[in-house]
């Protein structure tokens, strides 16, 4: 009925960080998880185009056993958005049920709600003009 398999799971797995230009803004993302196993996979996007196509400017995999904090440094000022999922079973994938519905938790910056698909860029977008912090619930 509701297809959200297009949640760009592949993009979330692109863990090779793109070299950042020398800037000084830092984005600190604290995740509130419902489980303490596996890793929270975080992908950072710097434009609507990159957000839609799933080409992150940076990504991190953060162990979920303790405080789950992703820090992205040296970011140029601008608009950003985050997609994240909690790889609860640590298999490196965003698991789905047989009909393609994610069976592991996922979330977006601003805690933007999904609505029959990933949260819109306009809802997930946040402006970075200096150090920025967010707490994202991912349950």
């Amino acid at each position, binding site marked *: 009925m509701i297809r959200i398999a297009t949640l760009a799971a592949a993009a979330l797995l692109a863990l090779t960080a793109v070299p950042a230009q020398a800037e000084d803004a830092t984005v600190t993302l604290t995740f509130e998880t419902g489980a303490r196993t596996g890793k929270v996979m975080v992908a950072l996007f710097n434009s609507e185009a990159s957000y839609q196509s799933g080409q992150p400017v940076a990504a991190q995999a953060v162990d979920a056993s303790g405080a789950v904090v992703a820090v992205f440094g040296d970011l140029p000022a601008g608009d950003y958005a985050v997609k994240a999922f909690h790889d609860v079973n640590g298999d490196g994938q965003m698991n789905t049920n047989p009909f393609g519905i994610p069976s592991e938790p996922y979330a977006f910056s601003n805690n933007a709600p*999904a609505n029959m698909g990933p949260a819109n860029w306009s809802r997930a977008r946040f402006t970075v003009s200096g150090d920025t912090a967010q707490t994202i619930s991912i349950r």
Partner: protein
Amino acid sequence: MLASRRHFLMGAAALSAAVVTPETVRAMAAMQASADWAMATADLEGDIAPRAMRLARGRAPAGLEGALFRNGPAKFRRPGGSATHWFDGDGLMRAFRVRDGQATLEARFADTPKRRWESEIDAVVTPGFGTPGDDRARVGSPDDANAANTAIMMAGDEVWALWEAGSPLAMNASDLSTKGFVTLRDDLKGMPFQAHPRYDPDGTVWNIGLWGDRMVVWRLNADRSLHTAEIVALPRACYMHDFTATARHLVIVMQPWVFDHDTMPFAARFAWKPELGTQVMVIDKADLTRRRIFELPAFSYFHLGDAWEDASGTIRFDVAAGKDMTFAMEGARVLVEGRGTVPGEPSQLSLVTLHIDGRAEMTSSGVTAEFPRSDPRRAGLARRYTAHVAGERGGRPLPTGLAVHDWETGRSDGFDFGDGVIMEEAVWVPKPGRSGEIDAWLVAPAINLRRGVTELHAFDAARVSDGPTASWRADIALPAGFHGLWNG
């Protein structure tokens, strides 16, 4: 003569168009007023604490002990937006408990993410079967849209509120408090689990969940743990609210309301194509890859009766069969509006026979019927009787009576309360110590429109036309529910 009469009438019509008479004003006001049946889709503003029902008629049958759990939508309208379809209201779990001849009633809303969010913003915004929803919705998974409003399943000390496009919602049978969605296995989280599971004599539960031209076939153990979940390809992507089963086979009835385009609300995805006919797929429970297809003329349906097969392998089942999906698309929308004429013809109780040579046929009993139910002790086995609500007729929605159909004699034994009552689905409650199929009570609530209260009726299944053996009356009215189960 005829011409001059018509001329006169036309003249009168032209006159009344020019001059608004008091009669016209009164007639227009009457059209705007809610229909008496609107109580069936009224909003309930909160949970109903347990309260006694008063014995209003007859005597409580000795041995009738247990609880009738029922589910159905009970909140449609909010200031910032409303559900526009009967199937999209918030699920309300009702418990009618009967003990020592006394009856009580209580009800609690299923505490779903949908209801929590919509309560917070005081607007119905979530897309559903017939409600479009809007961009305030929060739907990250099917269960975020789950109204938990359709039917129920018992699971130990839990009652599961069933919807059809998402997970069961577990509620405590003792106080109807919500525990949470049921995930039968981690990798099956959020898979559709429909509203009409079928039961084997050993307690095994079968159910399906649809996804386009595929379905999951659920098989649960008697303790409600998962046995298996298998994906089965369907010959067509169509809407099915129900399926049925014999002791050996699953029976999948594919009406020609087929997927047309991706949109919301959900019902708008389907197109009625009677030229495709209705297909029936019979699947071997022991090997889901063994399938046979039968072809029938087009009919629509929501509800099937339990199926059975004879020694030759001939399969029979009953169906409340309709002509098209007008009720689903339009009628259920008007029901929530609470006024006007509800489009769609009442369905008729019909019997489908699937012969071993591949032929299939359907015969109508001619009896108006919905919510067919039968003896739970005979689920999947040969049986003779079907209980169903009756009395619905074109122009006035919702049933007013109850009947038992005898497939052996073709006789219908019915009782009609008249237009002052909305009859709800009846369940079979076998009489203790008796094994005959008809040795049962039929227990069902009804809305007494004149008194504005919900009543609970117990009929003797062998003598429905005598009227209720006992009736208990609450001091409040609940909107009409959909489906229930007796837990004795």
